[in-house]
Protein backbone atom coordinates (compact mmCIF):
# COMPACT_ATOMS: atom_id res chain seq x y z
CA UNK A 1 0.00 0.00 0.00
CA UNK A 2 1.44 3.31 -1.07
CA UNK A 3 2.30 5.69 1.69
CA UNK A 4 0.96 9.17 1.17
CA UNK A 5 4.01 10.89 -0.30
CA UNK A 6 1.92 12.99 -2.63
CA UNK A 7 3.64 15.32 -5.05
CA UNK A 8 3.77 18.99 -4.48
CA UNK A 9 3.40 19.01 -0.74
CA UNK A 10 5.08 22.11 0.64
CA UNK A 11 7.77 21.95 3.21
CA UNK A 12 7.03 25.44 4.42
CA UNK A 13 8.96 25.29 7.63
CA UNK A 14 12.23 24.49 5.93
CA UNK A 15 13.37 27.96 4.86
CA UNK A 16 15.02 30.45 7.12
CA UNK A 17 13.18 33.57 8.12
CA UNK A 18 15.31 35.75 5.88
CA UNK A 19 14.79 33.51 2.90
CA UNK A 20 11.11 33.50 3.52
CA UNK A 21 11.04 37.26 3.87
CA UNK A 22 12.71 37.82 0.54
CA UNK A 23 10.40 35.37 -1.14
CA UNK A 24 7.39 36.61 0.72
CA UNK A 25 4.89 38.02 -1.68
CA UNK A 26 3.63 40.27 1.05
CA UNK A 27 6.84 42.12 1.58
CA UNK A 28 7.39 42.45 -2.10
CA UNK A 29 3.90 43.84 -2.35
CA UNK A 30 4.67 46.28 0.43
CA UNK A 31 7.75 47.44 -1.37
CA UNK A 32 5.91 47.97 -4.61
CA UNK A 33 3.19 49.84 -2.78
CA UNK A 34 5.68 52.19 -1.17
CA UNK A 35 7.01 53.07 -4.57
CA UNK A 36 3.54 53.60 -5.94
CA UNK A 37 2.71 55.86 -3.03
CA UNK A 38 4.91 58.71 -4.10
CA UNK A 39 3.10 59.61 -7.29
CA UNK A 40 -0.20 59.40 -5.46
CA UNK A 41 0.94 61.79 -2.77
CA UNK A 42 2.30 64.10 -5.38
CA UNK A 43 -0.91 63.94 -7.34
CA UNK A 44 -3.08 64.74 -4.38
CA UNK A 45 -1.01 67.69 -3.25
CA UNK A 46 -0.70 69.04 -6.75
CA UNK A 47 -4.41 68.86 -7.31
CA UNK A 48 -5.01 70.67 -4.06
CA UNK A 49 -2.55 73.39 -5.00
CA UNK A 50 -4.21 73.87 -8.32
CA UNK A 51 -7.64 74.09 -6.83
CA UNK A 52 -6.60 76.43 -4.07
CA UNK A 53 -5.05 78.75 -6.56
CA UNK A 54 -8.11 78.80 -8.66
CA UNK A 55 -10.00 80.35 -5.82
CA UNK A 56 -11.06 83.80 -6.81
CA UNK A 57 -10.29 86.63 -4.56
CA UNK A 58 -7.05 88.09 -3.54
CA UNK A 59 -5.37 86.24 -0.72
CA UNK A 60 -3.55 89.21 0.59
CA UNK A 61 -6.70 91.27 0.46
CA UNK A 62 -8.57 88.63 2.39
CA UNK A 63 -5.91 88.42 5.02
CA UNK A 64 -5.68 92.10 5.61
CA UNK A 65 -9.32 92.79 5.45
CA UNK A 66 -11.32 95.40 3.59
CA UNK A 67 -9.67 98.38 5.14
CA UNK A 68 -6.20 97.71 3.88
CA UNK A 69 -4.66 100.17 1.50
CA UNK A 70 -3.44 98.96 -1.86
CA UNK A 71 0.08 99.62 -0.76
CA UNK A 72 -0.26 97.34 2.25
CA UNK A 73 -1.83 94.67 0.10
CA UNK A 74 1.02 94.92 -2.36
CA UNK A 75 3.59 94.75 0.40
CA UNK A 76 2.05 91.59 1.80
CA UNK A 77 1.90 90.06 -1.62
CA UNK A 78 5.57 90.56 -2.13
CA UNK A 79 6.39 89.22 1.29
CA UNK A 80 4.32 86.09 0.75
CA UNK A 81 5.58 85.63 -2.81
CA UNK A 82 2.00 85.81 -3.99
CA UNK A 83 2.79 87.82 -7.07
CA UNK A 84 5.03 85.20 -8.57
CA UNK A 85 3.78 82.84 -11.26
CA UNK A 86 2.01 79.63 -10.28
CA UNK A 87 4.75 77.21 -11.23
CA UNK A 88 7.39 79.11 -9.33
CA UNK A 89 5.31 79.07 -6.23
CA UNK A 90 4.40 75.39 -6.56
CA UNK A 91 7.98 74.47 -7.30
CA UNK A 92 9.07 76.36 -4.23
CA UNK A 93 6.53 74.59 -2.06
CA UNK A 94 7.36 71.18 -3.46
CA UNK A 95 11.06 71.69 -3.07
CA UNK A 96 10.71 72.86 0.47
CA UNK A 97 8.37 70.03 1.36
CA UNK A 98 10.73 67.37 0.11
CA UNK A 99 13.23 68.78 2.48
CA UNK A 100 10.75 68.57 5.30
CA UNK A 101 9.88 72.24 5.35
CA UNK A 102 6.20 72.77 4.99
CA UNK A 103 6.43 76.50 4.94
CA UNK A 104 4.68 79.05 7.05
CA UNK A 105 1.06 79.91 7.41
CA UNK A 106 0.02 82.87 5.34
CA UNK A 107 -2.40 83.94 7.96
CA UNK A 108 -0.44 83.64 11.16
CA UNK A 109 3.11 83.42 9.95
CA UNK A 110 3.75 80.38 12.12
CA UNK A 111 5.66 77.41 10.92
CA UNK A 112 3.25 74.91 9.36
CA UNK A 113 5.10 71.99 10.82
CA UNK A 114 4.79 73.46 14.25
CA UNK A 115 1.09 74.07 13.87
CA UNK A 116 0.51 70.58 12.59
CA UNK A 117 2.66 69.15 15.32
CA UNK A 118 0.54 70.79 17.97
CA UNK A 119 -2.78 69.88 16.45
CA UNK A 120 -2.13 66.45 15.07
CA UNK A 121 -2.06 64.60 18.40
CA UNK A 122 -5.50 65.89 19.23
CA UNK A 123 -6.98 64.71 15.96
CA UNK A 124 -5.08 61.45 16.17
CA UNK A 125 -6.38 60.70 19.61
CA UNK A 126 -9.91 61.54 18.57
CA UNK A 127 -9.74 59.30 15.53
CA UNK A 128 -8.18 56.41 17.39
CA UNK A 129 -10.85 56.68 20.05
CA UNK A 130 -13.58 56.71 17.41
CA UNK A 131 -12.10 53.86 15.39
CA UNK A 132 -11.23 51.50 18.18
CA UNK A 133 -14.60 52.03 19.77
CA UNK A 134 -16.54 51.51 16.58
CA UNK A 135 -14.60 48.42 15.55
CA UNK A 136 -14.77 46.71 18.93
CA UNK A 137 -18.48 47.38 19.29
CA UNK A 138 -19.10 46.36 15.70
CA UNK A 139 -17.42 43.01 16.24
CA UNK A 140 -19.44 42.42 19.40
CA UNK A 141 -22.76 43.31 17.85
CA UNK A 142 -22.06 41.49 14.60
CA UNK A 143 -21.19 38.29 16.42
CA UNK A 144 -24.31 38.52 18.56
CA UNK A 145 -26.45 39.24 15.53
CA UNK A 146 -24.95 36.48 13.40
CA UNK A 147 -25.47 33.96 16.17
CA UNK A 148 -29.15 33.86 15.38
CA UNK A 149 -30.07 35.52 12.08
CA UNK A 150 -33.38 37.36 12.40
CA UNK A 151 -33.29 36.94 16.15
CA UNK A 152 -33.60 39.82 18.57
CA UNK A 153 -29.96 40.84 18.45
CA UNK A 154 -29.98 40.70 14.69
CA UNK A 155 -33.04 42.88 14.28
CA UNK A 156 -31.61 45.30 16.78
CA UNK A 157 -28.39 45.45 14.80
CA UNK A 158 -30.34 46.23 11.65
CA UNK A 159 -32.08 49.13 13.34
CA UNK A 160 -28.83 50.47 14.73
CA UNK A 161 -27.15 50.17 11.36
CA UNK A 162 -29.93 51.99 9.59
CA UNK A 163 -29.86 54.75 12.13
CA UNK A 164 -26.11 55.12 11.97
CA UNK A 165 -26.07 55.21 8.21
CA UNK A 166 -28.77 57.82 8.08
CA UNK A 167 -27.53 60.26 10.64
CA UNK A 168 -25.07 62.95 9.65
CA UNK A 169 -22.15 63.51 12.01
CA UNK A 170 -23.11 67.12 12.61
CA UNK A 171 -26.67 66.18 13.40
CA UNK A 172 -25.54 63.49 15.78
CA UNK A 173 -23.10 65.89 17.39
CA UNK A 174 -25.79 68.45 18.06
CA UNK A 175 -28.15 65.87 19.48
CA UNK A 176 -25.42 64.35 21.63
CA UNK A 177 -24.46 67.74 22.97
CA UNK A 178 -28.03 68.49 23.84
CA UNK A 179 -28.73 65.21 25.58
CA UNK A 180 -25.45 64.48 27.27
CA UNK A 181 -23.90 67.87 27.79
CA UNK A 182 -26.76 70.24 28.29
CA UNK A 183 -29.35 68.01 29.87
CA UNK A 184 -27.43 65.27 31.59
CA UNK A 185 -24.21 67.16 31.97
CA UNK A 186 -22.17 64.00 31.83
CA UNK A 187 -19.75 65.36 29.25
CA UNK A 188 -18.50 68.83 28.39
CA UNK A 189 -20.06 70.47 25.38
CA UNK A 190 -16.87 72.06 24.22
CA UNK A 191 -13.27 72.18 25.17
CA UNK A 192 -10.34 69.87 25.24
CA UNK A 193 -8.04 68.69 27.98
CA UNK A 194 -4.81 67.09 26.95
CA UNK A 195 -3.89 63.57 27.92
CA UNK A 196 -0.92 64.64 29.94
CA UNK A 197 -2.85 67.22 31.90
CA UNK A 198 -5.72 65.07 33.08
CA UNK A 199 -6.39 61.65 31.52
CA UNK A 200 -9.94 61.35 32.78
CA UNK A 201 -10.93 64.81 31.63
CA UNK A 202 -9.22 64.07 28.37
CA UNK A 203 -11.39 61.05 27.77
CA UNK A 204 -14.46 62.96 28.83
CA UNK A 205 -13.79 65.80 26.46
CA UNK A 206 -13.28 63.46 23.54
CA UNK A 207 -16.14 61.07 24.13
CA UNK A 208 -18.98 62.96 22.49
CA UNK A 209 -16.94 63.91 19.41
CA UNK A 210 -15.71 60.31 19.14
CA UNK A 211 -19.28 59.04 19.22
CA UNK A 212 -20.33 61.59 16.62
CA UNK A 213 -17.63 60.35 14.29
CA UNK A 214 -17.66 56.72 15.36
CA UNK A 215 -21.37 55.92 15.36
CA UNK A 216 -21.84 56.03 11.57
CA UNK A 217 -18.68 53.96 11.23
CA UNK A 218 -19.97 51.47 13.78
CA UNK A 219 -23.18 51.17 11.79
CA UNK A 220 -21.43 50.41 8.53
CA UNK A 221 -18.97 47.99 10.09
CA UNK A 222 -21.63 46.06 11.94
CA UNK A 223 -23.68 45.64 8.81
CA UNK A 224 -20.78 44.42 6.76
CA UNK A 225 -19.33 42.14 9.37
CA UNK A 226 -22.65 40.58 10.24
CA UNK A 227 -23.35 39.87 6.59
CA UNK A 228 -19.91 38.35 6.10
CA UNK A 229 -20.18 36.17 9.19
CA UNK A 230 -23.63 34.91 8.27
CA UNK A 231 -22.39 34.15 4.79
CA UNK A 232 -19.49 32.15 6.18
CA UNK A 233 -21.76 30.28 8.57
CA UNK A 234 -24.29 29.39 5.91
CA UNK A 235 -22.24 28.85 2.83
CA UNK A 236 -18.91 27.47 3.84
CA UNK A 237 -18.16 23.77 4.04
CA UNK A 238 -15.61 24.01 6.80
CA UNK A 239 -18.34 25.24 9.09
CA UNK A 240 -20.23 22.02 8.46
CA UNK A 241 -17.10 20.08 9.30
CA UNK A 242 -16.82 21.95 12.56
CA UNK A 243 -20.45 21.18 13.37
CA UNK A 244 -19.90 17.52 12.54
CA UNK A 245 -17.00 17.49 14.96
CA UNK A 246 -19.32 18.58 17.70
CA UNK A 247 -17.91 22.07 18.17
CA UNK A 248 -20.38 24.32 20.02
CA UNK A 249 -21.97 27.14 18.02
CA UNK A 250 -20.29 29.99 19.87
CA UNK A 251 -16.91 28.47 19.29
CA UNK A 252 -17.63 27.99 15.61
CA UNK A 253 -18.72 31.60 15.36
CA UNK A 254 -15.70 33.07 17.07
CA UNK A 255 -12.91 30.69 16.19
CA UNK A 256 -13.87 29.76 12.65
CA UNK A 257 -16.31 32.18 11.06
CA UNK A 258 -15.09 35.45 12.54
CA UNK A 259 -11.42 35.27 11.53
CA UNK A 260 -12.46 34.40 8.01
CA UNK A 261 -14.89 37.31 7.91
CA UNK A 262 -12.51 40.08 8.83
CA UNK A 263 -11.17 40.79 5.38
CA UNK A 264 -14.06 42.85 4.19
CA UNK A 265 -13.98 44.87 7.36
CA UNK A 266 -10.26 45.57 7.11
CA UNK A 267 -10.67 46.76 3.55
CA UNK A 268 -13.53 49.03 4.53
CA UNK A 269 -11.70 50.56 7.47
CA UNK A 270 -8.68 51.35 5.35
CA UNK A 271 -10.87 52.85 2.65
CA UNK A 272 -12.80 54.94 5.13
CA UNK A 273 -9.82 56.74 6.52
CA UNK A 274 -9.65 59.24 3.71
CA UNK A 275 -13.22 60.33 4.17
CA UNK A 276 -12.58 61.11 7.79
CA UNK A 277 -10.83 64.37 7.06
CA UNK A 278 -14.23 65.74 6.23
CA UNK A 279 -15.87 64.43 9.36
CA UNK A 280 -13.05 65.80 11.46
CA UNK A 281 -13.30 69.20 9.83
CA UNK A 282 -16.91 69.47 10.90
CA UNK A 283 -16.81 67.85 14.31
CA UNK A 284 -13.76 69.52 15.74
CA UNK A 285 -15.09 73.08 15.46
CA UNK A 286 -18.40 72.03 17.00
CA UNK A 287 -16.63 70.86 20.11
CA UNK A 288 -13.85 73.44 19.94
CA UNK A 289 -11.15 70.81 19.76
CA UNK A 290 -7.76 72.24 18.78
CA UNK A 291 -7.12 69.64 16.12
CA UNK A 292 -6.17 69.58 12.50
CA UNK A 293 -9.70 69.69 11.21
CA UNK A 294 -10.50 72.83 13.09
CA UNK A 295 -8.10 74.98 11.12
CA UNK A 296 -8.87 73.34 7.81
CA UNK A 297 -11.99 75.28 7.07
CA UNK A 298 -10.67 78.60 8.22
CA UNK A 299 -7.55 78.00 6.18
CA UNK A 300 -9.61 77.35 3.12
CA UNK A 301 -11.58 80.49 3.68
CA UNK A 302 -8.38 82.43 4.21
CA UNK A 303 -6.78 80.92 1.16
CA UNK A 304 -4.01 79.83 3.48
CA UNK A 305 -2.45 77.43 1.03
CA UNK A 306 0.47 76.07 3.06
CA UNK A 307 -1.79 74.98 5.89
CA UNK A 308 -4.28 73.34 3.59
CA UNK A 309 -1.50 71.58 1.74
CA UNK A 310 0.02 70.45 4.98
CA UNK A 311 -3.20 68.95 6.23
CA UNK A 312 -3.97 67.28 2.93
CA UNK A 313 -0.47 65.82 2.79
CA UNK A 314 -0.75 64.41 6.28
CA UNK A 315 -4.06 62.76 5.54
CA UNK A 316 -2.82 61.37 2.26
CA UNK A 317 0.13 59.80 4.04
CA UNK A 318 -2.17 58.33 6.67
CA UNK A 319 -4.45 56.86 4.02
CA UNK A 320 -1.54 55.28 2.21
CA UNK A 321 -0.11 53.85 5.41
CA UNK A 322 -3.53 52.50 6.29
CA UNK A 323 -3.65 50.70 2.96
CA UNK A 324 -0.29 49.13 3.67
CA UNK A 325 -1.33 48.16 7.16
CA UNK A 326 -4.42 46.52 5.73
CA UNK A 327 -2.34 44.46 3.34
CA UNK A 328 -0.12 43.35 6.18
CA UNK A 329 -3.14 42.41 8.23
CA UNK A 330 -4.44 40.28 5.39
CA UNK A 331 -1.19 38.40 5.44
CA UNK A 332 -1.40 37.90 9.16
CA UNK A 333 -4.93 36.59 9.03
CA UNK A 334 -4.73 34.52 5.89
CA UNK A 335 -1.89 32.05 5.70
CA UNK A 336 -2.57 31.51 2.03
CA UNK A 337 -1.21 34.98 1.43
CA UNK A 338 1.59 34.55 3.89
CA UNK A 339 3.14 31.41 2.50
CA UNK A 340 3.90 30.59 -1.07
CA UNK A 341 1.17 28.51 -2.61
CA UNK A 342 1.85 24.79 -2.84
CA UNK A 343 1.94 23.14 -6.22
CA UNK A 344 -1.18 21.09 -5.56
Amino acid at each position, binding site marked *: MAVGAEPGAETGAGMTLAQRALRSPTLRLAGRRLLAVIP*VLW*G*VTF*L*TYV*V*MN*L*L*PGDTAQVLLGANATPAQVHQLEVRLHLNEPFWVRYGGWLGATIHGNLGTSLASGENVTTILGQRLPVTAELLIYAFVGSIVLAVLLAVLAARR*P*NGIADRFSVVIS*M*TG*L*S*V*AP*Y*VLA*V*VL*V*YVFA*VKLQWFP*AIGYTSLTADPLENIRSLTLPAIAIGFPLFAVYTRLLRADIVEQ*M*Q*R*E*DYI*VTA*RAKGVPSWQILIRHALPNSMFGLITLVALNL*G*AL*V*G*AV*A*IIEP*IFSLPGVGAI*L*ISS*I*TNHDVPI*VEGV*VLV*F*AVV*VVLAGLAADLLYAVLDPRIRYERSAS
Partner: protein
Amino acid sequence: MSAPLPDLLPAPDAASAVPVRTKARGQASPLRVWIPAGFLILLAAACFIWPQIYPVPKPVGGSILEAGLPPLSPGHILGTDPNGNDVLSRILYGGQVSFEVGFSVTAIGLVVGGLLGVAAGYWRGAADAAISRVLDVLIAFPALVLALVIAEGLGPSELHVIWALAIFSIPAFGRIARSGTLAIREQTYMLAARLSGSRGRHIILRHVIPNIMPQLMTFALLGFGIAIILEGALSFLGLGIPLPEPSWGSMIAQGQQVLSATPEQALIPSAFLFAAVVSLNVLGDALRERWGVR
Protein backbone atom coordinates in the same frame (compact mmCIF):
# COMPACT_ATOMS: atom_id res chain seq x y z
CA MET B 1 -27.96 24.47 11.85
CA SER B 2 -27.19 24.66 8.21
CA ALA B 3 -25.16 22.98 5.52
CA PRO B 4 -24.65 23.66 1.86
CA LEU B 5 -26.09 20.80 -0.18
CA PRO B 6 -24.40 20.60 -3.54
CA ASP B 7 -26.41 17.67 -4.87
CA LEU B 8 -29.76 18.53 -3.49
CA LEU B 9 -31.48 19.25 -6.75
CA PRO B 10 -30.84 18.39 -10.34
CA ALA B 11 -30.06 21.24 -12.68
CA PRO B 12 -33.46 21.69 -14.35
CA ASP B 13 -35.01 22.87 -11.13
CA ALA B 14 -32.13 24.74 -9.66
CA ALA B 15 -34.22 27.85 -9.70
CA SER B 16 -36.70 26.43 -7.28
CA ALA B 17 -34.11 25.00 -4.95
CA VAL B 18 -34.23 26.15 -1.39
CA PRO B 19 -31.81 28.99 -0.79
CA VAL B 20 -29.40 28.07 1.89
CA ARG B 21 -30.37 31.13 3.89
CA THR B 22 -32.67 30.59 6.82
CA LYS B 23 -35.28 32.89 5.30
CA ALA B 24 -36.94 30.76 2.71
CA ARG B 25 -39.40 33.38 1.57
CA GLY B 26 -38.77 36.48 -0.48
CA GLN B 27 -37.10 38.93 1.77
CA ALA B 28 -38.33 42.50 2.06
CA SER B 29 -41.92 42.85 3.04
CA PRO B 30 -43.88 45.42 1.03
CA LEU B 31 -44.18 47.56 4.14
CA ARG B 32 -40.49 48.32 3.99
CA VAL B 33 -40.99 49.70 0.54
CA TRP B 34 -44.24 51.54 0.85
CA ILE B 35 -43.93 53.14 4.26
CA PRO B 36 -40.71 55.02 3.52
CA ALA B 37 -41.80 55.72 -0.02
CA GLY B 38 -45.08 57.08 1.23
CA PHE B 39 -43.37 59.22 3.81
CA LEU B 40 -40.99 60.67 1.25
CA ILE B 41 -43.79 61.47 -1.14
CA LEU B 42 -45.71 63.14 1.64
CA LEU B 43 -42.69 65.13 2.72
CA ALA B 44 -41.87 66.24 -0.79
CA ALA B 45 -45.49 67.16 -1.38
CA ALA B 46 -45.53 69.12 1.86
CA CYS B 47 -42.39 71.02 1.03
CA PHE B 48 -43.30 71.91 -2.52
CA ILE B 49 -47.05 72.06 -2.62
CA TRP B 50 -48.19 73.20 0.80
CA PRO B 51 -46.70 76.68 0.62
CA GLN B 52 -48.44 77.15 -2.73
CA ILE B 53 -51.91 76.24 -1.64
CA TYR B 54 -51.96 77.22 1.98
CA PRO B 55 -50.67 80.49 3.19
CA VAL B 56 -47.56 80.06 5.26
CA PRO B 57 -45.54 82.83 6.81
CA LYS B 58 -42.55 83.75 4.74
CA PRO B 59 -39.33 82.01 5.65
CA VAL B 60 -37.34 85.21 5.69
CA GLY B 61 -37.78 88.76 6.80
CA GLY B 62 -39.31 88.05 10.15
CA SER B 63 -39.24 90.69 12.74
CA ILE B 64 -37.05 90.58 15.80
CA LEU B 65 -40.06 91.19 17.91
CA GLU B 66 -41.21 87.68 17.21
CA ALA B 67 -37.88 86.02 17.74
CA GLY B 68 -37.55 82.78 19.60
CA LEU B 69 -41.17 81.89 20.04
CA PRO B 70 -41.67 78.33 21.20
CA PRO B 71 -43.65 75.74 19.22
CA LEU B 72 -47.42 75.84 19.37
CA SER B 73 -47.47 79.59 19.54
CA PRO B 74 -50.39 81.21 17.73
CA GLY B 75 -49.62 81.59 14.05
CA HIS B 76 -46.34 79.69 14.32
CA ILE B 77 -46.90 76.01 14.86
CA LEU B 78 -43.25 75.22 15.21
CA GLY B 79 -42.25 78.54 16.68
CA THR B 80 -39.81 81.09 15.31
CA ASP B 81 -36.09 81.23 15.01
CA PRO B 82 -33.76 83.81 16.59
CA ASN B 83 -34.43 86.14 13.69
CA GLY B 84 -38.14 85.93 13.99
CA ASN B 85 -38.71 83.69 10.99
CA ASP B 86 -41.35 81.02 11.14
CA VAL B 87 -39.72 77.66 11.71
CA LEU B 88 -42.31 75.55 9.89
CA SER B 89 -42.01 77.67 6.81
CA ARG B 90 -38.24 77.45 6.93
CA ILE B 91 -38.47 73.73 7.30
CA LEU B 92 -40.67 73.48 4.24
CA TYR B 93 -38.56 75.76 2.08
CA GLY B 94 -35.42 74.19 3.40
CA GLY B 95 -36.86 70.84 2.46
CA GLN B 96 -37.32 72.11 -1.08
CA VAL B 97 -33.61 72.86 -1.16
CA SER B 98 -32.71 69.44 0.17
CA PHE B 99 -34.89 67.66 -2.36
CA GLU B 100 -33.71 69.82 -5.24
CA VAL B 101 -30.05 69.35 -4.42
CA GLY B 102 -30.43 65.66 -3.72
CA PHE B 103 -32.35 65.06 -6.89
CA SER B 104 -30.06 67.11 -9.13
CA VAL B 105 -26.87 65.63 -7.79
CA THR B 106 -28.24 62.12 -8.07
CA ALA B 107 -29.63 62.68 -11.53
CA ILE B 108 -26.39 64.17 -12.83
CA GLY B 109 -24.40 61.35 -11.32
CA LEU B 110 -26.76 58.73 -12.67
CA VAL B 111 -26.81 60.04 -16.21
CA VAL B 112 -23.28 61.31 -16.68
CA GLY B 113 -21.57 58.84 -14.40
CA GLY B 114 -23.71 56.01 -15.64
CA LEU B 115 -22.93 56.72 -19.28
CA LEU B 116 -19.25 57.13 -18.62
CA GLY B 117 -19.16 53.94 -16.63
CA VAL B 118 -21.01 51.93 -19.24
CA ALA B 119 -18.80 53.32 -21.98
CA ALA B 120 -15.67 52.48 -20.04
CA GLY B 121 -16.91 49.04 -19.13
CA TYR B 122 -18.17 48.11 -22.53
CA TRP B 123 -15.54 49.42 -24.86
CA ARG B 124 -12.60 49.02 -22.51
CA GLY B 125 -9.25 49.84 -24.01
CA ALA B 126 -7.91 53.36 -23.92
CA ALA B 127 -11.22 54.97 -23.08
CA ASP B 128 -11.66 52.70 -20.10
CA ALA B 129 -8.12 53.29 -18.86
CA ALA B 130 -8.51 57.04 -19.08
CA ILE B 131 -11.93 57.20 -17.50
CA SER B 132 -11.00 54.79 -14.75
CA ARG B 133 -7.89 56.69 -13.75
CA VAL B 134 -9.82 59.90 -13.47
CA LEU B 135 -12.58 58.21 -11.49
CA ASP B 136 -10.08 56.62 -9.14
CA VAL B 137 -8.32 59.89 -8.44
CA LEU B 138 -11.57 61.66 -7.74
CA ILE B 139 -12.75 58.93 -5.46
CA ALA B 140 -9.47 58.85 -3.60
CA PHE B 141 -9.49 62.57 -3.04
CA PRO B 142 -10.60 63.90 0.33
CA ALA B 143 -14.10 64.69 -0.78
CA LEU B 144 -15.13 67.28 1.67
CA VAL B 145 -11.98 69.30 1.18
CA LEU B 146 -12.62 69.60 -2.50
CA ALA B 147 -16.27 70.33 -1.95
CA LEU B 148 -15.39 73.01 0.57
CA VAL B 149 -12.86 74.55 -1.73
CA ILE B 150 -15.26 74.59 -4.61
CA ALA B 151 -18.03 76.00 -2.56
CA GLU B 152 -15.70 78.59 -1.13
CA GLY B 153 -14.35 79.47 -4.50
CA LEU B 154 -17.62 79.75 -6.28
CA GLY B 155 -19.44 81.40 -3.49
CA PRO B 156 -22.39 80.07 -1.59
CA SER B 157 -25.45 79.26 -3.68
CA GLU B 158 -27.63 76.28 -4.30
CA LEU B 159 -26.38 75.81 -7.82
CA HIS B 160 -22.76 75.80 -6.75
CA VAL B 161 -23.51 73.25 -4.09
CA ILE B 162 -25.01 71.03 -6.74
CA TRP B 163 -21.91 71.36 -8.89
CA ALA B 164 -19.57 70.70 -6.02
CA LEU B 165 -21.44 67.57 -4.98
CA ALA B 166 -21.93 66.36 -8.54
CA ILE B 167 -18.16 66.08 -8.89
CA PHE B 168 -18.33 63.19 -6.44
CA SER B 169 -21.59 61.77 -7.56
CA ILE B 170 -20.36 61.17 -11.08
CA PRO B 171 -17.39 58.94 -10.21
CA ALA B 172 -19.42 57.00 -7.68
CA PHE B 173 -22.09 56.11 -10.23
CA GLY B 174 -19.42 55.67 -12.86
CA ARG B 175 -17.70 53.02 -10.83
CA ILE B 176 -20.88 51.07 -10.25
CA ALA B 177 -21.98 51.32 -13.87
CA ARG B 178 -18.57 50.22 -15.01
CA SER B 179 -18.31 47.18 -12.78
CA GLY B 180 -21.88 46.19 -13.59
CA THR B 181 -21.18 46.51 -17.29
CA LEU B 182 -18.02 44.47 -16.98
CA ALA B 183 -19.87 41.72 -15.22
CA ILE B 184 -22.57 41.54 -17.83
CA ARG B 185 -20.11 41.76 -20.63
CA GLU B 186 -18.64 38.47 -19.56
CA GLN B 187 -21.92 36.69 -19.70
CA THR B 188 -22.61 34.36 -22.52
CA TYR B 189 -25.60 36.03 -23.96
CA MET B 190 -23.64 39.15 -24.56
CA LEU B 191 -21.28 37.07 -26.59
CA ALA B 192 -24.20 35.66 -28.44
CA ALA B 193 -25.55 39.09 -29.21
CA ARG B 194 -22.21 40.14 -30.61
CA LEU B 195 -21.92 37.01 -32.64
CA SER B 196 -25.34 37.55 -34.10
CA GLY B 197 -24.13 40.84 -35.43
CA SER B 198 -25.98 43.38 -33.33
CA ARG B 199 -24.23 46.70 -33.28
CA GLY B 200 -22.67 48.00 -30.14
CA ARG B 201 -25.26 50.60 -29.33
CA HIS B 202 -28.07 48.15 -29.72
CA ILE B 203 -26.42 45.72 -27.37
CA ILE B 204 -25.92 48.38 -24.80
CA LEU B 205 -29.46 49.57 -24.86
CA ARG B 206 -31.03 46.18 -24.91
CA HIS B 207 -28.83 44.24 -22.53
CA VAL B 208 -26.51 46.24 -20.42
CA ILE B 209 -28.69 49.08 -19.28
CA PRO B 210 -31.69 47.08 -18.13
CA ASN B 211 -29.41 44.78 -16.20
CA ILE B 212 -27.47 47.42 -14.33
CA MET B 213 -30.52 49.54 -13.60
CA PRO B 214 -31.31 47.79 -10.29
CA GLN B 215 -27.84 48.46 -8.94
CA LEU B 216 -27.86 52.03 -10.16
CA MET B 217 -31.32 52.80 -8.87
CA THR B 218 -30.72 51.42 -5.42
CA PHE B 219 -27.45 53.30 -5.24
CA ALA B 220 -29.31 56.38 -6.43
CA LEU B 221 -31.56 56.22 -3.40
CA LEU B 222 -28.60 55.89 -1.09
CA GLY B 223 -26.82 58.65 -2.95
CA PHE B 224 -29.83 60.91 -2.63
CA GLY B 225 -29.57 60.61 1.11
CA ILE B 226 -25.84 61.23 1.07
CA ALA B 227 -26.35 64.30 -1.10
CA ILE B 228 -28.90 65.68 1.33
CA ILE B 229 -26.49 65.13 4.20
CA LEU B 230 -23.62 66.77 2.35
CA GLU B 231 -25.71 69.76 1.37
CA GLY B 232 -26.63 70.04 5.00
CA ALA B 233 -22.97 69.84 5.94
CA LEU B 234 -21.99 72.62 3.60
CA SER B 235 -24.83 74.79 4.76
CA PHE B 236 -23.98 73.97 8.33
CA LEU B 237 -20.49 75.33 7.73
CA GLY B 238 -21.84 78.42 6.05
CA LEU B 239 -20.57 77.44 2.65
CA GLY B 240 -23.77 76.12 1.20
CA ILE B 241 -27.06 77.87 0.89
CA PRO B 242 -26.42 81.44 1.94
CA LEU B 243 -28.32 82.89 4.82
CA PRO B 244 -30.97 84.08 5.21
CA GLU B 245 -32.25 81.50 2.74
CA PRO B 246 -33.42 78.48 4.67
CA SER B 247 -31.64 75.15 4.64
CA TRP B 248 -31.90 72.38 7.16
CA GLY B 249 -28.16 72.42 7.62
CA SER B 250 -27.88 76.11 8.40
CA MET B 251 -30.92 75.86 10.67
CA ILE B 252 -29.11 73.22 12.68
CA ALA B 253 -26.04 75.44 12.87
CA GLN B 254 -28.12 78.33 14.08
CA GLY B 255 -29.91 76.09 16.51
CA GLN B 256 -26.60 74.97 17.91
CA GLN B 257 -25.97 78.49 19.14
CA VAL B 258 -29.04 78.45 21.31
CA LEU B 259 -29.01 74.80 22.20
CA SER B 260 -29.41 75.18 25.93
CA ALA B 261 -32.16 77.75 25.76
CA THR B 262 -34.27 76.58 22.87
CA PRO B 263 -33.12 73.13 21.81
CA GLU B 264 -35.99 72.67 19.37
CA GLN B 265 -34.32 75.14 16.99
CA ALA B 266 -31.69 72.53 16.32
CA LEU B 267 -33.66 69.40 17.01
CA ILE B 268 -36.57 70.05 14.65
CA PRO B 269 -34.48 70.38 11.49
CA SER B 270 -32.33 67.49 12.72
CA ALA B 271 -35.41 65.32 12.99
CA PHE B 272 -36.55 66.17 9.47
CA LEU B 273 -33.11 65.58 8.04
CA PHE B 274 -32.84 62.26 9.79
CA ALA B 275 -36.34 61.17 8.80
CA ALA B 276 -35.76 61.96 5.15
CA VAL B 277 -32.43 60.14 4.97
CA VAL B 278 -33.63 57.13 6.96
CA SER B 279 -36.58 56.74 4.62
CA LEU B 280 -34.31 56.88 1.62
CA ASN B 281 -31.97 54.32 3.13
CA VAL B 282 -34.68 51.89 4.21
CA LEU B 283 -36.34 52.18 0.82
CA GLY B 284 -33.05 51.67 -1.00
CA ASP B 285 -32.25 48.68 1.15
CA ALA B 286 -35.64 47.07 0.69
CA LEU B 287 -35.52 47.54 -3.07
CA ARG B 288 -32.03 46.13 -3.10
CA GLU B 289 -33.28 42.94 -1.49
CA ARG B 290 -36.31 42.80 -3.75
CA TRP B 291 -34.30 43.18 -6.88
CA GLY B 292 -31.56 40.85 -5.77
CA VAL B 293 -28.69 43.31 -5.96
CA ARG B 294 -25.72 42.36 -3.83
